[in-house]
């Protein structure tokens, strides 16, 4: 199997944020994880990305237990996570942000040989810049490539977060509420980009509470509530699931 989560549990003191979650992700699919705020989605993502160690349970990556401890090791294995709120240098341009993220790619390509490139930074940067162009095109940021981050729309800020993650050439991309705070057409744009990514062979695991957006995008949906999985299956089915409806509507009518 490409990636498996097995009985993953995380407790913060008394509070159990994630309890005994298990599911699998196949290469090339888009898995959507629903759940109202506070249902433990983000914690789940952070556990996978290695931000915190799990209290119990295991992660299996390509049929082997995920050995990595720290996020940068996880990222090096090909699992990269975006941040819910983009973290940007307001004074840096879009292209420069993506350059920052090129570290892992460079490390993969040159290993310790990259130290030698310090002698001629300018030369190998050229190659890198082409790659940056590709990523920016893919993320539909190419027009704003030289804008300072401060001047970006919120949608583009979040998209830039995705672009930076893509620069690491992830096999599995974890997206933390990419649609939150976006307008309709921005969501449409995001939807398009994510489908393109899958077309390029990137596997996606997206968490969001925007049912409409995720329902349309995901091949398979997992619903969470109070830290546990309450339903899994085709999005439409999951969204009709009684428990899920209760989790959402129950509070909406309260």
């Amino acid at each position: 199997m490409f990636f498996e989560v097995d009985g993953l549990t995380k407790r913060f003191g008394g509070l159990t944020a994630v309890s005994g979650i298990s599911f699998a992700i196949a290469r090339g699919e888009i898995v959507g994880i629903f759940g109202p705020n506070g249902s433990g989605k983000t914690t789940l993502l952070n556990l996978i990305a290695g931000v915190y160690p799990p209290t119990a349970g295991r992660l299996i990556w390509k049929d082997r237990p995920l050995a990595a401890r720290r996020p940068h090791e996880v990222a090096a294995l090909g699992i990269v996570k975006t941040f819910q709120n983009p973290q940007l240098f307001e004074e840096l341009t879009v292209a420069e942000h993506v350059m920052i993220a090129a570290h892992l790619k460079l490390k993969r390509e040159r290993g310790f040989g990259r130290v030698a490139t310090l002698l001629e930074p300018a030369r190998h940067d050229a190659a890198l810049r082409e790659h940056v162009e590709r990523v920016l095109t893919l993320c539909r940021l190419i027009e704003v490539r030289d804008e300072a981050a401060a001047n970006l729309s919120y949608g583009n800020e979040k998209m830039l977060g995705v672009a930076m993650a893509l620069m690491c050439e992830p096999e599995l991309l974890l997206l933390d509420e990419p649609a939150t705070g976006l307008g309709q057409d921005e969501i449409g744009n995001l939807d398009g980009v994510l489908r393109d990514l899958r077309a390029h062979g990137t596997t996606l695991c997206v968490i969001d509470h925007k049912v409409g957006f995720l329902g349309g995008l995901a091949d398979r949906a997992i619903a969470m509530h109070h830290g546990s999985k309450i339903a899994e299956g085709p999005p439409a089915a999951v969204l009709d699931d009684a428990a899920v409806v209760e989790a959402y509507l129950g509070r909406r009518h309260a």
Partner: protein
Amino acid sequence: MRAMRPEWLWLPLFAVPLVLHNEVALTVLVFTFILGILAVSFNLIFGYTGQLSMFHAAAFGISAYATHLSMAHLGVSFWIGMVIAVVLVVAISVVVGTICFRFRLKEFYFAIVTLAFSEMARLVILNWGSFTNGSLGINLTAKPMLWLPGGLVPVQGTRMWYYLALVALILTVFVCARVVHSWMGRSFAAIRLNDELADTLGINVFRYKLISFLVGNAGAAFAGALYAFYLSYVEPGYLSIEQSLAIVAMALLGGREPVAGPILGALVLTALPHVINFSAEVRILVYGLILILTILVLPRGIMGLVTKRRHVL
């Protein structure tokens, strides 16, 4: 701009001693260049990696002593002595840096712990009289030797020191610029931006924080050896907290970027007390106001007046 290679802009500085026959001004410039090395290297840690290190004066002072002591006790030349000192400082920095970064000490905590380590270093040097001559300090009579047309000559006199310091400064700026404008500099930038993000982007935060700390302190060690032998005197005051703060002030005043920005800070803080003869009280006042106004009015330092937007890469 392609037409002219930027390095050429250093050339005017080489002409200064030829046109300017003023001992005092040249002396100020020599100190500026050497302290410039200190400020520029500090800025690698502070301005580019975002870590407020208070260990810089310690690296500076330890190297000054180590250079002299290895010359005195091992009978090596200044240059070898300096290399030994740099190696020693880097070794100490590995220990200090590893402790600080392994335990993820951030911002203020990092500043305080590095401050603590440099105070300990100062107290050891101060009280290890048999070796360092304690508070009396040591007069350094030896001179660095250079191979020049005409054989091996000692570096002495303000003009020779001027050129030595200038070349050393250019070397430092060149190295720092290379680091900053490379993938490594971008890793530093990512860490300064947000080290959690850097982490999820696959950057080994610990490793790159440590690297910038080491490279920066190596620069400080370089400066320390030169400073001590230009002044021909080394004392525990090299490692004082005041010195650490002065370095921070240089970086802020000059501007955290571009790479050479802090040199301006070094220049102003070195020259000011000698250009204008304030009374002591007024001088302290002016110094304080400079720090305050730099933060409140010139957040990007003097360089901020020249450069349009912040260039981090």
